[in-house]
């Protein structure tokens, strides 16, 4: 299922790119360029404000007004979950899966390892995203869209390390990529 799913992308690349680009343009026109990682901090700040009000009063980040309101970008994230769910249901692609084709090809270990790797990866993803003031959407895509200087160093390390780690973790390509080598 996974292989057949990834072999036929729902849209050709140019149509897919234009669709995503137009979404970005719409976002720029309406409110702000898209960004995904900030609401995580806002949500966590909300919890911490409730749990440990004293700690967050003195915290330079949590006391910042910017991280106190769960506005546009928070609802944006909720929308992503909703929209993705709807689209997957529409494409009849909603299916419970734990491993990907590349993982299966490279690791015989049980799916638990994939979940552990996913968790560690998730920690690194958000930590990195906040250190860089934006995730792939917020810093890479929106950064280039607005031609901001910070997008250049971000792009270099993002893809440098991404390719390196992908090479180390997934050395073997699944069968359908073999023939083309």
């Amino acid at each position, binding site marked *: 299922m996974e292989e057949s*799913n*990834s072999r036929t*992308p*729902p*849209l050709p*690349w140019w149509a*897919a*790119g234009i*669709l*995503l*680009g137009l*979404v*970005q*343009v719409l976002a*720029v*026109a*309406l409110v702000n360029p898209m960004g995904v*990682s900030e609401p*995580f*901090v806002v949500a966590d700040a909300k919890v911490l404000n409730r749990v440990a009000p004293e700690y967050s009063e003195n915290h330079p980040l949590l006391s910042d007004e910017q991280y106190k309101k769960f506005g546009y970008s*928070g*609802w*944006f994230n*909720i929308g*992503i*979950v909703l*929209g*993705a769910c709807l689209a997957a249901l529409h494409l009849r692609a909603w*299916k419970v*899966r*734990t491993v*990907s*084709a590349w993982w299966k090809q490279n690791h015989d270990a049980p*799916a638990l390892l994939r*979940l552990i790797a*996913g968790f560690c*990866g*998730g*920690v*690194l*993803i958000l930590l*990195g995203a906040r*250190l*860089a*003031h934006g995730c792939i959407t917020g*810093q890479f*895509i929106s*950064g280039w869209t*607005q*031609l*901001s200087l910070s997008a250049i*160093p*971000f*792009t*270099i*390390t993002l893809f440098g*390390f*991404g390719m390196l780690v992908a*090479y180390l973790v997934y050395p073997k*390509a699944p069968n359908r990529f073999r023939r083309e080598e």
Partner: protein
Amino acid sequence: MSTPIVGLIMGVIFGASLVLTGLTNPDKIIAALRLKDFYAIRTVAVFLLVGMLGTWILDLFGAANFDIKPAVILTVLIGGALLGIGLGLTGFGPATGLASAASGRIDALVTVIGMIFGTHVYILIYPSVVVPLERILNLGNVTLPQITGASAAFWVVPIFAAGSLVLFITRSREPRDDEQRIKAGNSGINEAFLDRPILIPEETGSLLRSDCLKAAYVFRRWKNLLFLVMLLCLLLVQGSFWLVSTGQVEIAENTNPGTTVVPGADIMQAGQAAVPAEESPSPWLFGFDVTFERLTSIVRIANNLLVLASVLYALIMYFGLGVSFKGGLGGLAHICGALYMALIIFVLLLPWQNFFGPIAMGATYTLNELARWCTTDISDMFGMVLFYLRFTGYWALVMLLLLLAQLRSFRWARAILR
């Protein structure tokens, strides 16, 4: 509309597009990072280019909302590295992780839980680690146009043009089977492809044929490139015609090479020419004001390029005809038609007026000629019709022929490559 609702709607659209484009699939991302499948890379590249162009256009109308992130080089480098490690490990980004979890992937769900922990780690280390780090190499919220002092157009237009050109040239040569067919032809008989009808038993015949097919690939690629060049030039020339004829760009009389103005010799004329040049900046076009002189040189370059490209276009058609004849590839009727049209385009594009004066005209025109037409009185009906027939009708004819030629040769390519 209140912002939460806008955010929710935008999120729904973005999440749905992520699933529709297949970027939520971690296999696609890993395959892209391992450089095995370029679908995700190309999609994201188009995403960037369209977003960049759209934002720039919005900005020209003053309708763009910017949110420039601070360029703290050190933390951005570290953050990019960590995010890259996470991306390479899982195949998810923050947005695609959320969307992927919503479409039923347990590993994505766990990654999202990891992200929440990552946020917590970030908040915990913020006072002691991040604040000191952010003091190093903080360049502030700057953009590339700001630090280079150039206009945004200077960045957007070349990046967009180069990016789309690269994407166009490197696009996948549609049916993957063709290449395999060529490979099979080259290595004699490959059992895997024996059932394909294109393989003929004689080794020499199949070798020649596969060679011709390869050549046809090359020709097709160059033909498409030349077509694009011609299309661009034609649009440029016509666009400049409309700019001039609707009065967006004032006609400067002294650009006529026949009357070279010696500085100070004719004060009246120089003054007249200088005043409209100052009054007619069109800053909306490319960030720099379009003056008549600049437009003239642009059109001159475009004209030369057009003639050159049309020669090459016809030549490539001719060679394509030869190749498909020699290799017995078929599609001869299509390529013959395309060749004739390419030749007609070439003949029409030649600047005949330079050789024969006003009795014969080519479809290309210099702006001086246009200026002559514009300044003479064309108030009567016949004059108007003639004017538009000469500058737009003639152009439209060439455009139509070009499109037809491209269509015919496209059919040729499809016929032989099938």
